[in-house]
C-alpha cells in the first residue's frame, strides 16, 4: 500500500506518505541519515546548506503547533525557505478545493509540501496530482498515518535498544483513533520486532487489528509483562466521555501507566509518548518524568528525523 506512490521504479523515496510498505533498508537509511543530523543539531551553528534555495510549504488543514514547528525547525536547519499555511482557517472556508489550494501553491514553485489533513488519504491525493519533482510529506492524515512520528519513534528505540529483532513492544491506549500507532506498527514489523502488542479496551482497538501482526491485550498488567518498550498514546479530550469510554478517571484506572504497573515491564524498559501528555490520564507524572521516560529525547530526535526525510526526498542525502 502506498509503495508505488511513494517509492519510484528505481527504489527512491519520492514522497513519504506512510510507513506501510517501506522496506527495512529504507527505514535504516532514514535513521542513519538522521543520526548525522543529530550531531549537526548539537553544534553551535545548527545549519547545513543541503536545501538552500528550496521552498517548503507547511500546509496544515488541521491545526497543530507542535508538529508544524518541528517541521519548520527541521527545514530551516537544512537552509530551506519555509512557508507556513494554516489552511484550516482560510481557503477551504472560502470553498476552495484541496487540489486547487495545492495547485496554487505549486504555481509558486514549491519544492515540497508538508501536509496535515483531517481526512485519511489526503496526502495520497495530493501526491497523485503534484508535478514530478515535487515531494509530499504526510504530517498526519486522519487516523491513517503519521510516518515521521513513527520513524522518530524507531530512531528513539534504536538509540536505546539497538537490535529490533529481540524486542517486546507494547502500544497502550487509543489505538482506534491513532495515526501514530498505525505508523509505528508498520515500521516495527518491517524492522523485525518479534512481539508487538496493543493494549486497550475493545472500544479503542480497531476491528481486525491483529491482522496487522499484533497481539491484542485488554489487561494492562498482563500486556506489559517483560516489555522492552512501552508506547503510551494520547487520549484525546473528546474521547474521554461518550460512547467509547465512561470517563477519563475510569480509563486511567484500567489503562493509565503508573510506576507500579510499569514494574511489570523489563527493568530497563523505555517509556515513550508522542505528546502532548495528559498527565493523570494515560500516564502518571511519576512515569513521564521518571528514569524510564525517553519522551524528551523523542522530541529532540524528531527534528533530526524530519531533516533526514526532507534531505532524502530532495535527493541530497
Amino acid at each position, binding site marked *: 500500500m502506498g509503495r508505488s506512490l511513494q517509492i519510484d521504479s528505481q527504489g527512491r523515496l519520492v514522497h513519504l506518505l506512510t510507513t506501510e510498505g517501506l522496506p527495512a533498508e529504507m527505514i535504516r537509511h532514514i535513521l542513519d541519515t538522521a543520526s548525522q543530523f543529530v550531531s549537526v543539531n548539537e553544534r553551535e551553528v545548527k545549519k547545513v546548506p543541503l536545501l538552500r534555495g528550496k521552498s517548503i510549504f507547511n500546509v496544515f488543514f488541521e491545526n497543530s503547533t507542535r508538529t508544524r514547528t518541528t517541521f519548520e525547525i527541521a527545514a530551516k536547519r537544512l537552509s530551506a525557505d519555509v512557508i507556513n499555511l494554516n489552511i484550516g482557517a482560510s481557503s477551504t472556508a472560502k470553498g476552495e478545493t484541496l487540489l486547487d489550494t495545492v495547485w496554487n501553491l505549486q504555481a509558486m514553485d514549491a519544492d515540497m509540501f508538508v501536509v496535515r489533513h483531517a481526512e*485519511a488519504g489526503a496526502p495520497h491525493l495530493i501526491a497523485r496530482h503534484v508535478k514530478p519533482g515535487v515531494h509530499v510529506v504526510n504530517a498526519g492524515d*486522519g487516523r491513517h498515518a503519521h510516518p515521521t512520528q513513527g520513524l522518530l519513534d524507531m530512531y528513539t528505540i534504536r538509540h536505546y535498544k539497538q537490535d529490533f529483532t529481540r524486542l517486546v513492544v507494547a502500544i497502550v491506549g487509543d489505538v482506534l483513533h491513532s495515526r501514530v500507532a498505525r505508523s509505528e506498527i508498520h515500521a516495527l514489523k518491517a524492522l523485525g520486532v518479534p512481539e508487538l502488542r496493543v493494549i486497550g479496551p475493545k472500544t479503542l482497538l480497531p476491528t481486525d*487489528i491483529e491482522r496487522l501482526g499484533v497481539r491484542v491485550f485488554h489487561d494492562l498488567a498482563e500486556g506489559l509483562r517483560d516489555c522492552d518498550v512501552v508506547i503510551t498514546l494520547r487520549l484525546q479530550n473528546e474521547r474521554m466521555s461518550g460512547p467509547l469510554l465512561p470517563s477519563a478517571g475510569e480509563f486511567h484506572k484500567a489503562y493509565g501507566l503508573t510506576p507500579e504497573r510499569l514494574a511489570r515491564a523489563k527493568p530497563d524498559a523505555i517509556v515513550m509518548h508522542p505528546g502532548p501528555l495528559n498527565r493523570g490520564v494515560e500516564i502518571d507524572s511519576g512515569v513521564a518524568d521518571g528514569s524510564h521516560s525517553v519522551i524528551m529525547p523523542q522530541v529532540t530526535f524528531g527534528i533530526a528525523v524530519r531533516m533526514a526525510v526532507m534531505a532524502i526526498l530532495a535527493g541530497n542525502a
Partner: protein
Amino acid sequence: MRIDIRNARVIDPVSGHDATTPLFIADGRIVALGSAPDGFRPDRSIDAKGLVACPGLVDLSARLREPGNEYRATLESEMQAAVAGGVTSLACPPDTDPPLDEPGLVEMLKRRAESLRQARVYPLGALTLGLAGQKIAEMGELAEAGCVAFFQADAPLTDLNVLLQAMRYAATFGYAVWLRPQDSHLAHGGVAHEGEVSTRLGLPPIPVVAETVALHAILELAEATGARVHLARLSTARGVALVAAAKARGLAVTCDVGVHHLHLCDRDAGDFNANMNLVPPLRDPRDRDALRRGLADGTIDAVCSDHTPVDDDAKQVPFGEAEPGATGLELFLPLVLKWGGEMTLPLAATLAAASSRPAAILGVEGGTLAGGRAADLCLFDPERHWIVSPSALASQGRNSPFLGLEVAGRVVTTIIDGRVVYTG
C-alpha cells in the same frame, strides 16, 4: 414498423428459450419467435449474426439526477446512457433535490422522460415527506402520478414507529415499500467496511451490524404488517443469510444487490481510490462471494446498476469526503455477464437477474420476449471487449471503479416499443 431480426442467438429468460431463431416485431410488439406470421413483410431487417438478442435490461436503480442535480447529469445524457447499456426500463430513486415526494414532481419527471422516447422510467416515490423520516408521504397521490413503489433511499429512518405506520399504510393499498437496510446510528460517520482495510487505512468504519440490525427490524415489521417489502442493496454475507431465513419461513420479501458489489471488495480501495467509495460500502471478499452466490441461487432476486453519476469535483477529494457512487448504466450488462460467466451460469439465467427478475419486483412489463409482449429488447455482442474510459461512456458520470479496465459485452442495438432507439 415491422422488423425482423435474423441470425441472433435469441434468449428469453422467462421461457428458457436459447436458440438461433428469427424474431419478428410489429406495431411495437413481439409477434413471433421462430417462423414468420402469415404475410409478415418487414420494413426493416436486421442481420444479427454473432449477436445475442435478449429482453432489454430492467434496472432497479438508476439516478437520473433530475430534478436538482443537473450539473451532475441530465435526463438527456442519462437516458442516452441507459439505451447505450441496453436498459429499456429503469426505476429511479426519490433522492433528487427536492425529493420525489409530491405528485407534480413525479408527473414532470415522467413527462420529461416520455418526451425523450427512450427507456421506460418508473419513479420510486419518497416513503416519507422530504425523505426526512418523520411523516409518511402521500402514497396514494404519488402512485396515481406514476410511482411504482415507495423508497426511503439512503436517508435515515430512525423512528421505527414511522416505519411501522408507513408499512401498515402501504399494506392497506398494496404498495411496495423499499428500504436499504442500514441503521443510521451504527453507520454514523462511516465511509468503509469495518475490517482490516478500514483499520489499516484509518477510515471511519461501517460495521456489518449496521446492516443486520436494520434487517432484523425491517423483517420483523414486514412480518407484523404484511407489507410488501423490497430490500435494496444488500452488502453482507450475514444479510444474505437473514434474507434466506426469512424467505424460508415464508415471508414475501425481495431484495437486490448493486452490480459493483458482485465484483469488488474493500481491498480494492487501494490507495484511497475515491471511485471505490460506494453506498453501501464495498465489504470483505467473503461478503462479495456470498452476494455472488445469493444472486445465483435466488436468495437475492435481482441485480441493479445503482447508477450514480458523480462529477469529478466530488471525487477529486480525500476518500472520506468523496460523494459515494459509481456510474453504472453502461457497465451493467458487461458486469452482469462477467458475474454469470464466472459463476458458470447459463446465459438465460444470467440475463434473468437483470431483466425478468427485476421486472417482476417492479410489477411492470418487460424482461421477456414472449409473443404479444412489448418489443423491448437489446442486441449485444458478448465477445466485444472494450476499455472503460470517459470517452466510451454516454453518461455524464465518469466515476467508475473500472476506469482503465477491460470488460466484455457491448450493446449494438436497443429496441423499445418496436423502435430502434440506439445503434452502437
